[in-house]
């Protein structure tokens, strides 16, 4: 019934949808991207080359994708959620195979035309897959422990693959994001406790399967001071940069730590440090405020959405963005040990930027389709 109704109003509904798009959220996202451009311009030594210009080009692609994704009916995404998940999982396996042929850590999949980071794509597809699964679940289903076996597998497979890359940061992010989704659908507290205990028990077992260099990487991830010239040194320099920024910062393009290369990977992992050095506490609080506003938008959208699928997607997306942001900022401030995490929308990097924007597209899509009724099962309205 709904299908015929909506298809009948296809012509007018596209315009209506565009009208419905949450443009102020898009503006917020673009402001965030703009902060990234500015910092990449500064990181390039006051030049668009080599980072800012490419980031702008990717953001342009991302903007188009974001709007397109927002206009696509939520039911489309639900229909293809599992397939999308499967494709992303296969890409992770492909990366693993490619990595075992090559050397060391392998996160990128070369598709010939573009290189993609499957773990980034997985952040979205896992949210969609879990949302679809729990959309179909009644409150009683969620209470049944065997009903949770499938989502547990959905989470465990990519987490294991990503961890094997090894990209512990992203694996933890996937795990925490999924846990948050399980939490909001109403999985009981004690089950989380049980799951946590199971993971804790599995860690020593899994440890034995890791190779020495992998163990070394995990150790450094947990304790950067083990690598005083690498991660440990970076964190110290990052704290010096942040602290020396003070209240108002050293001024745009004048961050001595970043420009004299004391700060490593300033365009990716440590871009927040650079911002904090050049714009001080005022600047860093402003950036945190932007993220907070987007979070609030996300929650508002989730609460206004009538479908469980849409709500879960909204919370899943904002949680993923929040986790990425928190882990990155907490890492550069030396609060948590981490390596190789990026600041969503701001750090240089194509996969991350485009995937994040697609995620925001989904969030806006949830807003646009907040009143669309979605049946329990695919095809059932």
């Amino acid at each position, binding site marked *: 019934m709904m299908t015929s109704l909506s298809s009948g109003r296809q012509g007018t509904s596209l315009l209506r949808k565009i009208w419905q798009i949450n443009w102020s959220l898009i503006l917020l996202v673009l402001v965030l991207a703009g902060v990234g451009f500015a910092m990449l311009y500064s990181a390039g030594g006051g030049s668009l080359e080599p980072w800012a210009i490419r980031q702008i080009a990717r953001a342009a692609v991302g903007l188009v994708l974001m709007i397109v994704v927002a206009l696509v009916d939520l039911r489309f995404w639900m229909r293809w959620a599992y397939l999308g998940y499967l494709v992303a999982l296969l890409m992770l396996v492909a990366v693993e195979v490619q990595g075992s042929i090559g050397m060391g850590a392998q996160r990128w999949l070369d598709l010939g035309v573009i290189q993609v980071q499957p773990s980034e794509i997985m952040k979205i597809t896992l949210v969609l897959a879990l949302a679809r699964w729990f959309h179909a679940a009644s409150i009683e289903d969620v209470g049944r422990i065997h009903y949770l076996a499938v989502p547990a597998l959905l989470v465990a497979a990519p987490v294991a693959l990503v961890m094997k890359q090894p990209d512990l940061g992203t694996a933890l992010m996937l795990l925490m994001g999924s846990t948050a989704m399980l939490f909001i659908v109403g999985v009981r507290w004690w089950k989380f406790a049980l799951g946590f205990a199971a993971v804790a028990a599995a860690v020593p077992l899994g440890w034995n399967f890791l190779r020495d260099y992998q163990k070394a990487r995990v150790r450094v991830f947990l304790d950067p001071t083990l690598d005083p010239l690498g991660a440990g040194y970076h964190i110290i320099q990052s704290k010096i940069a*942040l602290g020396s920024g003070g209240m108002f910062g050293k001024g745009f393009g004048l961050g*001595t730590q970043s420009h*004299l290369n004391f700060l490593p990977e300033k365009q990716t992992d440590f871009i927040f440090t650079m911002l904090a050095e050049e714009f001080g506490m005022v600047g860093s609080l402003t950036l945190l405020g932007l993220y907070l506003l987007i979070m609030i938008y996300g929650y508002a959208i989730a609460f206004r959405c009538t479908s469980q699928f849409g709500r879960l997607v909204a919370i899943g997306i904002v949680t993923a963005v929040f986790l990425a942001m928190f882990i990155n900022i907490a890492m550069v401030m030396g609060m948590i040990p981490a390596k190789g995490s990026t600041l969503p929308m701001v750090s240089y990097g194509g996969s991350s930027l485009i995937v994040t924007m697609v995620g925001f597209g989904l969030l806006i899509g949830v807003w646009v389709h907040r009143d669309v009724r979605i049946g329990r099962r695919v095809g059932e309205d």
Partner: protein
Amino acid sequence: MRSRAPLSTKQRDQLRDQTFTRRALILGGAKLGLFGALVARLYYLQVVEADRYKVLAEDNRINLKLLAPPRGRILDRYGEPLALNRLNYRVVIVAEQAGDIEQTLDRLGLLVEVSDADRHRVIRDVRRKRPFVPVTVRENLDWDDVSKIEINTPDLPGVSIDVGQSRFYPHTEAVGHILGYVGAVSEAELTGDPLLELPEFRIGKSGIEKTRDLDLRGTAGASQVEVNAVGRVIRELSRQDAVPGKDVELTLDIGLQEFARERIADESAAAVVMDIHTGEVLAMVSAPAFDPNVFSRGLNAREWEEFLANPKQPLNNKAIQGQYPPGSTFKMMTAVAALDAGVITPDTVFNCPGHYALGNRLWYCWKHVGGHGSIDLHNAIKQSCDVYFYETAKRVGIDKLAAMAQRFGLGAKMGIDIPGERPGLIPTREWVRATQGHPWNQGETLNAGIGQGMVLVTPLQLAAMTARIANGGYAVVPHLTRTVGGKPPDDIKRPPFPSLGVAASSLAPVVNGMIGVCNEPHGTAIRARITEPGFEMAGKTGSAQVRRISTAERDSNTRRKDDEIPWRERDHALFISFAPIQAPRYACSIVVEHGLHGADSAAPLARDILLEVQKRDVGREPAGGRIAGADPKASG
């Protein structure tokens, strides 16, 4: 799990919505909490700890680079440079610009010689250092090599000419002992002054370079440069130029110094010429000598061995470090002490039969066959009669003799302003008892009276002693530094000098005796006299026994001829002198090691040197003009 009553779809959806809302709010709250944690951490880093991190950030980026000051020059009294800084052209290679180091070195090797050792060192350094740090290939290039490289720079990527400064001593070995040399700072010489830790910094290791090191050194400048994490200089933030070291002007006349050095030629000898009123040392030669340029460059083991193995000890500054028995030159002291004590008068006559008996031993005169007969003081000095002075010494006694010698500057360091001076020795009763373990015996007094036995003096002390006799008994002290940075240094004793408290009547007969030595018939140095009117000198010969002459040798008259004695066993030849005799101005002492007789080998040297110094002096004024108080009349 407890079973529930079946719920309606609507109830179930309601329950699901409620759960969702509750749980989402909890999750949102948790996120807000984490936001709060980030803000708290930001506040801690950027507000609470901001000052500490600001300091750390400055430390990170600012490097203080010391700028070494150019070392002050050393000049002679007329402003002629004796030590200066010369541009040192080095060819350096910068790895990151050179590309293939081996190939670049090959090409460079076609233009200038690059030894295998240099080559290995360069390749090793290039690997060890950061790619933008220049590595020295060769130093001290001459102008030809420099131009060859400059012309070919387009073909030599990363190769460039670098200019540094190195110490240069244009007069080489003529002044080596006085100037000393510079060298790299050793561990023990570090004082905490960061300047000393600069790898290319050199400090004075001996001679004037050492005593005046602090003045010559100057003050370091500093350049604050901004560096990046790998130490590459981005730009200079501030610069304080180094203050060059002060010039040190010596009392030496390099012309006279070189004259004396050449006149000594191959002898192992020392000569000191000083102004008897001011104490300015005009020449101080020790031969053989060393080239300080070689030392500043650094010696290799073989060169060092050669220096040490040379029996003529080129490293020793014999003028201040050589301690010799003064021989007959010491008779001046015996005479002055006796006249001062009143035990003899100028008219006192003793008989010299060629020997002198004390107890059951005989002391011989150098003229042991026949002797001098009846002889007065004037002739005893003139002919250097030993017997006359045995008797005189016995009469005056060792206490008064030693005291007088000490008043004239013997037996203790003069305090000359270069390091290494030795004190010599004037034996006293106390000294003999303390060090030899037996009481003084009178035979030792006789030996001391003619400057043998235990008495030891340095050529510098002899010059000062002569100056004090010739200037009328003033305690002139020799020195080498005229000015430091244009001002006389505080550590130099300058006129007016205190009187030694010896009556003119005690000195005049001795001065007259010395005039006789060089200007009267039978004077021991009459053959070496200065004949030009107005330039005449006065003097006293001396020879110092190196080896004891046995009684048997003397009695059997089997004493070997001079040229049969091995060099090392020959007597030292000494001569002290002053000129001109009408108004004395210059004192000169000469010691020729193993030169046999003062009259033959030492006196002619003194004659030529004293004539030269007087002739050079005519109408010449030192560069800085006369220093107040340096006027000869001021000391009376």
